[in-house]
């Protein structure tokens, strides 16, 4: 009988971690729907980026207020999670504060956790105010209505509850330690929770134990629920930001990738030995599709980008098209890509892991051509992203599909392209007049 809490804890842990693992496997399966890209170059530079951009939050801090608040919450969450390790060991073994033997260092640890927890609480309240009270433009874009707004708030509520339970657990523990209750060894320092320990003055020891145990169990249960919430939320970035930054482009931002399928076609066209009448072999694979109209046409890195996006909207607020009232929002490009990928994922789940065409695609059903044609390719969105997401590459791939598969460029651009093709300039000037400026 005495092992019932241990067994319950084990079951809770297995269920929490198990369901999370299942969903992460789904994320990996979905990312693999994209075109594989072999990235095994510049390892040192890539790890440097992870250290600087992801761990060091260098890009986030470019906006000092939200950057500093985020750094506090991030640091708090990472460091307080050391405590989770103790909770798991205690839960499985039935011990209490198993790291207490660390003595003075344990006091230091718990004290640090408490101060961080308080700072996280304050930051989260400020975050909530920014999202709900202050009229900050990037939180009011059309794509933030409904679930995305709710999602942002739910994450903040989770953090308030978890930090609150953590402090409640500590303060009741501290009260019990002062009473000299059995099993509650004298350990840890409680600079924050000791401040409101007075509220337990009238409580009996048994109800205090009940309170402490309840807070302890709710705290770890809350953490496991939060862990499982990640998959359904933009909050997945806390894990994916690291691989995403690793796989982020390290070439100059102006270098757009050259479409290999097109290179093959151009080479064939220019090869005098190529047989112009050759028919493809009957078993030849279908010709490659140019550009992207759906998520499967994007690369695995682009799909990872979509899952990593935490909808902060820095890209959109820097976008010249968005700032001047155009429909384009780079954040929406990423959100649409993720939403479509999740739709494909559900489709696969209900069809034994095989995608059954549903008559929908990323183009038009999610992203309109008006958005795609508003982009100036200025790279402001790519520069702004704190986790190295590249919305521009998706826009470019979709433009390629529009132009090369559908011949659906805006009319003026068709004229431009005809000029380039016929006379080597975007305007209708003769190539033979190219040096006339020198004689004028």
């Amino acid at each position: 009988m005495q092992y019932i809490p241990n067994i319950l804890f084990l079951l809770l842990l297995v269920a929490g971690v198990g369901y999370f693992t299942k969903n992460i496997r789904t994320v990996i399966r979905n990312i693999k729907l994209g075109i594989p890209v072999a990235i095994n170059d510049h390892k040192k530079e890539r790890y440097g980026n992870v250290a600087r951009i992801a761990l060091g939050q260098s890009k986030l801090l470019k906006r000092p207020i939200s950057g500093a608040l985020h750094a506090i919450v991030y640091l708090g969450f990472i460091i307080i999670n050391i405590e989770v390790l103790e909770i798991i060991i205690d839960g499985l073994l039935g011990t209490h504060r198993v790291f207490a033997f660390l003595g003075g260092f344990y006091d230091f640890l718990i004290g640090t956790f408490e101060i961080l927890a308080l700072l996280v609480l304050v930051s989260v309240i400020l975050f909530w105010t920014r999202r709900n009270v202050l009229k900050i433009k990037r939180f009011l874009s059309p794509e933030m209505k409904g679930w995305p707004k709710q999602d942002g708030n739910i994450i903040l509520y989770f953090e308030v509850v978890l930090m609150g339970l953590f402090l409640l657990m500590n303060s009741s523990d501290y009260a019990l330690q002062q009473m000299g209750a059995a099993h509650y060894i004298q350990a840890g320092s409680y600079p924050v929770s000791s401040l409101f320990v007075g509220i337990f003055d009238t409580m009996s020891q048994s109800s205090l134990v009940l309170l402490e145990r309840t807070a302890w169990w709710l705290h770890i249960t809350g953490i496991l629920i939060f862990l499982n919430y990640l998959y359904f939320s933009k909050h997945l970035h806390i894990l994916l930001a690291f691989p995403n930054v690793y796989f982020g482009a390290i070439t100059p931002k102006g270098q757009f990738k050259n479409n290999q399928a097109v290179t093959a076609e151009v080479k064939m066209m220019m090869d005098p030995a190529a047989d112009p009448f050759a028919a493809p072999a009957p078993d030849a694979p279908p010709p490659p599709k140019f550009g992207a109209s759906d998520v499967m046409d994007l690369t695995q890195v682009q799909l990872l980008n979509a899952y990593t996006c935490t909808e902060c909207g820095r890209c959109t607020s820097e976008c010249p098209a968005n700032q001047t009232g155009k429909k384009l929002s780079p954040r929406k490009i990423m959100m649409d890509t993720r939403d479509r990928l999740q739709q494909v994922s559900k489709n696969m789940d209900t069809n034994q892991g095989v995608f059954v065409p549903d008559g929908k695609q990323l183009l038009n059903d999610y992203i309109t051509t008006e958005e795609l044609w508003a982009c100036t390719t200025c790279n402001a969105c790519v520069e702004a992203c704190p986790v190295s997401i590249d919305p521009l590459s998706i826009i470019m791939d979709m433009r390629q599909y529009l132009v090369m598969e559908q011949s659906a460029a805006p009319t003026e651009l068709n004229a431009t392209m005809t000029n380039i093709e016929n006379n080597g300039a975007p305007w209708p000037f003769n190539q033979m007049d190219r040096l006339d400026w020198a004689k004028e």
Partner: protein
Amino acid sequence: MSDVLKVPTMADFMAQGKQPEVLFWVGCAGSFDDRAKKITKAFVKLLNNAGVEFAVLGTEESCTGDPAKRAGNEFLFQMQAATNIEVLNAYKVQKIVTACPHCFNTINNEYPQLGGNYQVMHHTQFLKTLLNDGRLKVEGGKFKGKKITFHDPCYLGRANGEYEAPRDLLRKLEVELVEMKRCKTNGLCCGAGGAQMFKEPEPGNKDINVERTQEAVQTKASIVATGCPFCNTMMTDGVKHQEQEQQVQVMDVAQMIADASEL
């Protein structure tokens, strides 16, 4: 003016069995656009003055394909690239300088995988090396003490990380360099990139070049300096839109240096 401009072509050099120090890639805007032609000429004057043995491709030059690629026509881009690379490689070109950040970006970053490997420089970078080597003298002249702001072309700045070369040249002109709120990595686009230059903007409540020039005008600078023929056009139009053309001039860095030396 034609008697002062010396513009040899690669074909001229080849006929003499010589190789120029650098190929000046003029670009479509630099060849055909009236405002950009002034930049081209100013840059040629500086090259002549510095005694740089340069050549142009002349009628053998063709669009790099940048607008086609950014518009989604990868096919046309790669056709243009293949043609240009064939010409450049036939002339054994090693070093290219261009006054257009779009040409600079495309040849520098996108041609190598297609077989075109050259050392490519933006004209502000090239002018800076001439300055460092003592071949070019840059002095304030009529710009001394004037308030000037620099608009970062996206394809020079964010796209290729070059923010300082044009600013260093401006400082040499002894101007009072003031920055717009959005500059360098945060610089706001002029609105021309991504083939937008060649189409009407999508529906919105403002033109991007107006937004950008408002910011430039707010600095109270008398000259908006830039390093891109397309930015030049967009900014000039934006200044006109605000009826500020009497107070604010838009000039390329090369034009300013040539003007300062009264070339």
